[in-house]
Structures are given as structure tokens and as C-alpha cells.
């Protein structure tokens, strides 16, 4: 169990903390990043990603306010931040990492290519609900 590492991409620190605690109490190792820019840096800097699963918030900020903050590339500015989480999920998929979208948004409003593209769990179901949803994925990982 302890070798399963989960990536949390969530820009709300309170939620991220609580989610981290829930996952860790279930025996998982957790890494949290809070902005899309951090995710991009992670992708750029890591050869192979160690994560078995990623839990991704949908509407992510690009970066935290800072005096010398890096601006997003034009294509991301054009696409907007409403689908930042979806961008992350698709990037992770190319690296072989499964993703679950954990969002407060209406699932019907998320522009998936197919309904099966990514599993969506609404935040209204709470962390328990999320843990139930990721059980099948965990079983599969445990083999």
C-alpha cells in the first residue's frame, strides 16, 4: 500500500490539506501541487512520474501572485483556466498516469472528448465519496 503515490492538484489549500489527510489515512503517499504552472514545471523536470493516480481539481489558477510571476503561454490564455484541470489530466495520461477529476463544477459542463475520457467525482460527495470512487483504481494498481 505504501508504495502507491497519489498526486493532488488543488489550488484551495484547505481542501488540499483535508484531502491529503484523507488519502494518507488510507495509506497512500501524497504529493500536492496548487497551480498549473507548478504542474507544468513538474512535467518538464520529471522523466518518469512516480504517481499511480492523480486527483485533479478542474478550475486551477495558473500561478500564485508574486512580483515576478510567469505568465501563461498564449494557447493557455486563449483556452482559459476553466479547463486547466483537464489540460493536466491529458498531460498525465501521456505519461501513463490515471487521473480522476475532483470538482465542484457540474460534470455536464466539463468538455470531455468522450464520457469515458476521465472519471469525474463531484466535491459534494466529500472525501469519503472520493475514496470509494478510487477504490477500483487502487485495486487494479495493487494487482
Amino acid at each position, binding site marked *: 500500500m505504501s508504495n502507491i503515490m497519489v498526486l493532488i492538484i488543488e489550488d*484551495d*489549500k*484547505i*481542501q488540499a*490539506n*483535508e484531502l491529503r*489527510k484523507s488519502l494518507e489515512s488510507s495509506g497512500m503517499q501524497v504529493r500536492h501541487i496548487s497551480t498549473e504552472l507548478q504542474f507544468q514545471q513538474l512535467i518538464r523536470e520529471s522523466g518518469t512520474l512516480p504517481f499511480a493516480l492523480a486527483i485533479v481539481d478542474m*478550475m*486551477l*489558477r*495558473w*500561478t*500564485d*501572485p*508574486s*512580483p515576478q*510571476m510567469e*505568465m*501563461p503561454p498564449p494557447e493557455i490564455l486563449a483556452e*482559459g*483556466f*476553466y479547463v*486547466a484541470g483537464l489540460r493536466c489530466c491529458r498531460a498525465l495520461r501521456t505519461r501513463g498516469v490515471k487521473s480522476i477529476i475532483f470538482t*465542484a*463544477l457540474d460534470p455536464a459542463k466539463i468538455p470531455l472528448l468522450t464520457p469515458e475520457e476521465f472519471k469525474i467525482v463531484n*466535491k*459534494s460527495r*466529500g*472525501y*469519503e465519496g472520493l475514496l470509494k470512487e478510487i477504490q477500483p483504481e487502487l485495486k487494479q494498481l495493487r494487482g
Partner: protein
Amino acid sequence: MAELATASERGRSFAVVLNQLSSRTDKLEGIRDVLSLYVRHFNAFGAALWEVAEDVGPERKGRLFLQAQYFENRDEPPFYHLPTSSVSGRCIRLNEPARRSRKNDSWDNEIETYPHVLDELEIDSFVSIPIQLSPDSPSPADATITVYKKMGEFSEEQFDSLKDAALLFPAVYRSIQARASLILLKRVQTVLRTASYIETPQALDKAKEAMAGVLEIISAHFQFVESTIYLHNPLTDPPNVYGRIAERWPWSKPSRDSYVPGDGGTGWVLKNGKPLRFFDMARFADDRDYYREKYSDMEWPDRVGIREEVERYFKLPPGDIFPLSYACVPILQNRTVKGALRCRISRNGPYHVDEDIMSALASAAEMIADWWDHWTREQQQHHDQIAATSIMTSLSLANRSVIQNWHLTGAIARIIASFLEICRRSVPQADVVEVWLHEPRARIVRKADQPERTASLADAPRPVSDPSRSVIDTSQAEQSPIRPNNAFQYALSTSSVLHLAEAGKSPFFVPSIANAVSFTVAPVIARTGSNGVLVFASSAPVPWPATISNAASFLAEQLALYLAAHQQILAFNHAQSRLQNSVQEQADLLLDFQHQLRTPINIARNSAEQLRKYAPGGQEWAAAFDALTSSTLRAGTVANNLQFFVSLAQGKPVAADNRWLTVDEVLRGIERASEFLYNRGAFGRQLNFVFPTASPSMSITPMPRLHGDPNLIALAADNLMDNAVKYSFENTSIEIRADAGNYGREVYLSFRNQGLRITPEEAPDLKKRKHRGKLAEVTSPEGTGIGLWMVSELMRSMDGRLEIHPTDAKGWNDFRLYFRGSAQ
């Protein structure tokens, strides 16, 4: 006595016969019959009526012209004119009858004129009796009856009888003249009455036929060798151009083009509206001074080709006819020249133009003028109807198209372009149709170039346009002594259609449309203020008749309607768009609020679940409790924002319960609300509240109170605090303080943070609804962009305001809530 009685009886008998003849004669030819009666009665060979015209002839003594003649077995008279030095001339001047006889090839008195003609005719005697032909003549005599005899001379008795008989002639002459003229005019009237305007394509041909009929009557009456009518048709002819409507050559044909229509003497008549008569074309050289003086503004010799005419006179082929004299009278309507009636005289009947002929021609011309005026008016009305129908049909189609296309982008440009095409078709005389409209900045701007002309006219001028000149700046017009576009200004200020047949001769300046000679400028006056002009321009001097005036006026009104409708539709679209945007915006914002609300609710729910897991008072329990409290407060703030947004979006005024509050209590309330939420909420910012006892900058003690609603202030402060936390840099301070301004009349709360930079250009926009800074969007995508707008609205309801100060040199952003201060 018996002889005397016989002579007297003969005289009475002659008078009776003469009276009978005159009473049954209604043609001018009757005068010839009268003369033949004299010939037969006095056993003579021939008789002639010589009439004098003063001021013509050598030395300006006058000249006698043959008006009527009868010579046995001769159609042509032996001579047409005599000098006043002749026997008949002296007879008139002295008012004394004259008798001359030839005996042994020698006349009893000197014969200066045409002795060879008398020889050729073998005339042995003639008698000239002076008469007063015209009752208005100032002289006792203005004509003679001259009777010629072969074989022997007139006896004294015959001479006396002739004197008596000649006294009868003027009355008979005038009787025949009057009756013949009356008959002539009646016939002309009959022709004209039956030739009213009929609405057919051949209407003009019918009019020409009527004029030919009139000419036939006149020619037959006066024995004219040629007669022509020129008339100006306002619908087809340019100004000052007269078409040759009809012409007659009863005994000859126009084999020589020595006369140019509308040129020469006829041109002079058309130009001046005065009658012209030319006594004897062949004798022009002798009478040159007379004509030059009488018609001083006319270039006689060159204009009418007199020399050629005289040369032709001497080279006439056998049977050809030389016109002796010439009359041309204007056809006038209300003193305006509408045309001319030109005639030339030859052969039998009157041989020269006298006052009676001029009078009869003038009467005929008056009748023609009345008839033509009526005809052209009806023609005009008919064409107006057709034009109106055409315009209405085109506009009906255009309106349909307009209705279908209003909603399209650039609809008005397309509408104007198609409208100009309608104008072009409706006013074929115009080569260019343009719309110029006022812009707000006192400029008149050409809105659309018309498509190239495709309609054809017989003498169609080329298209003209000048795309380079599309704007006229009238802002300087008042200062300039020459107003640059006063044709436009005139049309707009008088609201009337302005016609400029020849713009170059007009005092009005007109826009420089290359090669355009004449313009019609119709004002376009829309109630919405889109004033302008509709300009029809032609490269020819177009008369712009009433049809065009009406069409231009109508089209301009229609365009004004389009523009007004366009303005209204724009306003409607704008309102609709605003409404739609508002509805969409509200829907979007409600979704955003929903999302913003869901997050703290979810956190609260999860935190509550976790609280159950941990023992109270422990570290885990405390963290969960903080999360629960924080999210609950956040949800409350969002809910409050939502409530106020809905009210504001529905246009409901914010109900403010304003009262006087101390700065201290207001700041303490904000501190209480913020402390837990932001200091213990793991946001990494330090909150610094400064509680002043006096105004730091004004040195006003105590600190003035502020006037506001505590709940609204709390909501406004919460929004500013939320922004300060979201957009400030981590590990920086957020400073909340208060101060007075304007000598205590104002109090403000300042929320300062060191965060995303706000430029001076961007600062005013941040208060606009739905406006979000680019950097803010990058760092906080959940924002709705209405927080600062709502704060601004809340402040307004408290008679205060929100001021956003751009980032200063030390990196501080300052958001200030200004209230009324108690020091006022």
C-alpha cells in the same frame, strides 16, 4: 347727266359687288379676288396693293412692299417692292392720287422705278390711289391701290371712279383680314382642342401631328413657303434647348440647309422672347441699317446667312421658290419663352410681313403656348405618376429587403447602396447620386458611391465621380467668408430641394463632383439628427423638372425614414443586446456564485465529518474546526454577495440603513470578521489594523464619524479583504486604516496591499461590472469580476464612493471607501 348717273350707278354697282365678294370671302386670297374685281371693273390689266414700311430702304425713306396683286394670266407678280421715290411712294407720302400714261414710248412724267418692267408688260398707263390700310397708322396714307392698264390710258372719269372705288378698299381689306384671321384662329383652336395629351407612348408623335396640322392651316392661310414650330419640352429638353416639333414646306422642300434650328433669327427670338420680321430678304443689303438699328443685339448678316440667301436668289433653278420675307414670333407662357413659330413668305397672297400677319401669328402663338402648357403639364403629371409608381414599387422591394437585412452587420451601408441604385433608376437624368450625411463632428460625409450608371439616354453623358472628395468639414464654415458647402447648408436650412441647372453660374458652391454641371440637392432630415443631403448630379445641364424635384424630395424623405429607423433599430438592438448580455451575465454569475458557494459548503461538510473523527481540543480537531468555521464564513459572504448582486441586477436600489458610526467601531467590526477568516485561514498574509484617535493627515481630533450602514460596510470590507488576500503576494502585509479628508467632511477606510500591480490606466476600469484584470484572471480564475462594481454600488447607496489608487512606487495598492464625515 345720263353719263354721270351711269357712272354713279356703276360705282354703286361696284360697291355692291365688292361688298358681296368680301362678305363671302374668308380667306386672304379674297384680297386678290378684290383686286381682280378692280381690274375687270376698270378694264385694266393688273392691280397691286402696295404697303409702306417706314425706315427701310435707301436713305431710310421707307420702302413699298407688295401685299397683294392681280395681273391677268400671271401667277407671279412682276415686282415685289418699290422705293418711296416711285410714283406710288410719292402718292402715299403726299397723300395724292397719281396717274401716269405713256404715249409714243414716252411717259408723261418721269418713271424712276422699273420702267423696263412696265415696258416688258406693255403697260401704257397706271393709277395710284393712296389709302389708309391700317386704322392705327399715324399717316393719312400708308398704302396705295395701283391699277395698271395696257393699250390706252385711264380716262379722267375712270381716274375719279377709281379714287372713289379705292376708298372702299380699306374696309373690304380689313373685313376680309378680320374674317380670315378669325377663321384661321378657329381652325387652329379646333386642331389644338382635339390634340390634348393622351397617355400613350406615341403622345409626343401625336403632339407633333397637331403642330403639323396647325402649320398646315397657317401655311395655307398666308401662303407660307415654309413654317416651323420650335418648342421646349421640359421633360426631355435641357434648359434653353428647343426641339423642332413640326415644319411645313408646302411648295418646296428644304433642299438647302441654310437654316440651323434654333440658330440665327429664330435663335434670337428664342433667346429674347421678342418677335422678328424681315421684310425682304433679297433687299437685305439695302435695308441693313434698319435691321441693325431695330435688332441691335443681333448679328444679322452672319447669323441668318443673308448673303447665301441672296446668292441663291439669283441662281434659283426654275420652279424653285425664294422666300421673300420672314417672320418669327415667340411662343410665350407667363413671359417665359416656350418656343417659336417661324414662317417664310412667298408666292400668292401677302408677299411681305405686315402688322396684320404679325398679329395673326402672335395670336396663333398664344394659342399654341396655352395648349403646350396644358399638354406639358399633363405630360408632367403622367410622368410624375409613372415616376411615383416606379419609385413606390422600387421602394416596396427595397423596404422588404431592408426589413430582411436590418439585423446584418453593415446593413445601413448596403441599404444606402441599394437605395442609391433606386434613386439612379428613378432619376435617369442624373449621372451620379450621392448621399452625404452629417457626422457629429460638423462634417458632411459621403456615405456610399453609387454604382456605375447603366441607364442610357440618347445623349447620355459619361459617369462622373470624385471618390477623393468624400468629406466636407463644416466646422470652419461660420468663420469663412465663403462657406464651403452652402448648397448643402441651404438645402438643409430651408428644407427644400435646390436645383442648380448650371452650377457654374450659381452663387451656391456645390461639392466638386468632377465634370458635373448641374445638381439637385434634396435635404435628408431625420428626426434622430442624421441630417444630410441627397445629391443628384449630371454632366449635362439638366432642367431638373418637377418630376425630379418630387422624386428627389420623396427619396430624401424615404432615406430619412431609413436612417431614423436604423437609429431606432440600433438603439433597440443595443437595448436588446444589453438585456441579453445582462441575462447571460446574470446566468453566468449565478453559476460562478454557485461554484463559489459549493466550495465552502463542501469544505464545511467534510470538516464537520472529520470533527467527528477526532477528539475535541486536539490538533486535528482544531484544524477541522478552523476549516469548518472559515468555510462557513466564506459561504455567508458569498451568499450576501449573491443576494446584493441579484437585487442590483434587477435594478432594485440598495436599501441602506445609514447612521453615524465611529471609525473605531467600524474598524473593530472589520477586524473581528477578518481576523479569524484570514489570520487563521492559512493564507500567509499579515493583517495590520490601525485605529486612529485623530485624523493622521488633517490633525482633526477627535476622528470624525462616518455615515453609513454597518452591514453594507461589512460587505464592502469583506470584498476588499477577499481581494487583498487573493491578489497580494504571499508573506506580505495587508494594512487597514482610516483617515479624514476634505477637512473632515469625508472619512475613508483604506485597504492597502502589496500585490498584483494596478496601472493608472487600469484602475478606473476595475470598478466596471464584469471587468477583470488579466493578472487577476491568471491567479484567481474563480473570480466573477463584480466584487468591486458591487462595492462601488454599495458605497453609492451610502452617499460615498470607492476610489482605487494605482500601485505606488513602494508597490502598495490602495482601495479606499469614502464616506461622509461628521465634520461637515
